[in-house]
């Protein structure tokens, strides 16, 4: 239980924010940042821990969003149930894409390109298929009741997305300590060596992609409930694929808190940039993301979360060089 203390503290602190901050603008910013964090947490399972860099996590975000929306609008399914089914559908999609790619032995950049292709195909299909509302998109009827998973106050939405982030943090932490997690990290570090040690690399990656898809889908499902609208560009657009991978990489891929930290920092900087440059400056936040990414990879390849460790390592290395040399000869 003690191991969960950092998660409990972080979540408790974040949960207190709406009690102090009442500005809708700030809360809206935080809700979106947490939603991106959640999408990044999904990516982090497969990319951060498993080393399989997906460029197409929009496939999961979008499928979660569309399934949640379509089930409610066209089939009258309860929003909570639709939310769960959206997650389940994306988990299944993760297993499907994973099965196709990992079984055929795609690794590295080939895997990245194929995931990107899947997301793009889904985007194009969604932009013409009647069931998604094609080019018009799908609107969810305003129904501000808890049963419909819609809330009048931003704070409630904030707590809902925070709860989802908390669940994802706990899942990540459990994976990190489990045998599955050890195998997943081993596959990331060296797939052949892992297989020689009895790790079924294909099965491990497949499971990771399924979990990864489910978590990122939850962000998509939430998007729909929050904004009550989805179209193909939002659901399957490259924006979410990029944010889902940028936030964990900047925050610290393969760490429990990396995506959350990355999302908060990146989103804050993006907002800041838009405020400094007054008026319309489309794409300016992307420029900021790019600069932050370069800086982080330059100074701390393990992400912002690794900055402290990186500084300590440099400091220690500078201080103990002769000892390290001796150890090498010993």
């Amino acid at each position, binding site marked *: 239980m003690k191991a969960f203390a950092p998660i409990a503290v972080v979540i408790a602190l974040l949960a207190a924010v709406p009690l102090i901050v009442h500005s809708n603008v700030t809360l809206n910013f935080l809700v979106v940042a947490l939603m991106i964090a959640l999408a990044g947490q999904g990516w982090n399972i497969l990319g951060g821990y498993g080393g399989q860099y997906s460029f197409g996590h929009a496939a999961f975000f979008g499928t979660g969003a569309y399934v949640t929306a379509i089930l409610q609008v066209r089939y009258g399914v309860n929003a909570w149930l639709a939310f769960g089914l959206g997650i389940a559908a994306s988990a299944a999609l993760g297993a499907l894409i994973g099965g196709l790619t990992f079984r055929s032995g795609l690794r590295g950049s080939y895997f990245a390109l194929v995931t990107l292709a899947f997301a793009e195909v889904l985007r194009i299909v969604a932009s013409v298929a009647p069931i998604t509302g094609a080019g018009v998109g799908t609107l969810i009827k305003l129904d501000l009741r808890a049963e419909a998973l819609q809330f009048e106050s931003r704070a409630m939405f904030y707590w809902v997305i925070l709860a989802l982030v908390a669940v994802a943090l706990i899942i990540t932490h459990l994976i990190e*300590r*489990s*045998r599955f997690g*050890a*195998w997943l*990290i*081993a596959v990331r*570090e*060296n797939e*052949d*060596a*892992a*297989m*020689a*040690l*009895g*790790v*079924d*690399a294909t099965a491990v990656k497949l499971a990771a992609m399924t979990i990864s898809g489910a978590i990122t889908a939850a962000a998509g499902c939430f998007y729909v409930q929050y904004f009550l609208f989805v179209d193909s560009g939002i659901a399957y657009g490259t924006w979410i694929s990029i944010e889902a991978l940028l936030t964990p990489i900047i925050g610290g891929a393969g760490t429990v808190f990396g995506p959350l930290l990355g999302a908060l920092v990146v989103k804050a900087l993006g907002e800041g940039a838009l405020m400094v440059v007054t008026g319309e400056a489309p794409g300016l936040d992307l420029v900021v993301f790019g600069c932050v990414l370069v800086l982080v990879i330059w100074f701390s390849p393990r992400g912002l979360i690794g900055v402290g460790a990186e500084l300590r390592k440099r400091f220690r290395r500078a201080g103990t060089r002769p000892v390290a040399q001796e150890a*090498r000869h010993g």
Partner: protein
Amino acid sequence: MAEPLLAVQGVSRRFGGLLAVNGVSLSAAQGRITALIGPNGAGKTTLFAVIAGFLKPSDGTVRYGGEDVTGEPPHRLARRGVARTFQIVQPFAGLTVRENIRVGAHLHHRAREAALAAAEQVAREVGLTDMLDRPADTLTVAGRKRLELARALATEPKLLLLDEVLAGLNPSEIRDIVPVIQGLRNRGITILMIEHVMQAVMSLAEHVFVLAEGRIIAAGTPAQVAADPAVIEAYLGHGAAAKLGAGHGH
């Protein structure tokens, strides 16, 4: 004695037009150390990859523990008790020594604590106890070789395939690790090793197979194969055996 633990029968492996391994048969007797030697490019590592399931043979069968395991994937063979080390060491570079060994230990220990305890025990056996918390990429070559060995041992193998665990080590490091390998054999682990360091082969192996240009050209005790003219020629070139025989006053 019944069937040997490992029996390779007529295995060939072709890469396009190159026949890397050509109709090789060899066996590793239960509880013994068997060595596979041969000049560079003889096909030793390819043969190992076939035995360990990393490559499918173009022809022939691999039998292990009396069962046909030809073409079984590595992770399944590992579950049956076949472990291998890599000639080019493949540590999980970003992890500590302890975490590296833990991955192997998880094969038979589901719980994290049990796997970590098993990893510590294995580290003691191969002499890595002092380095347990060091990142694997800070180890010396000798340390990395030990780590390869430790990870493989953590899977609790019955058959251990060692691909040049002594290569790149200095004589004193070799002296340190030879007793470790003998200790494993004494514990009942069957060992098949590829080795270039002849001094070690002579002192460790009970049976030696010599591979050259994809074929087994000699087999027997270390003393027998060392005296075999075909082996000398394979290593030193055509006519070398005769020249050595003539100039024996040296």
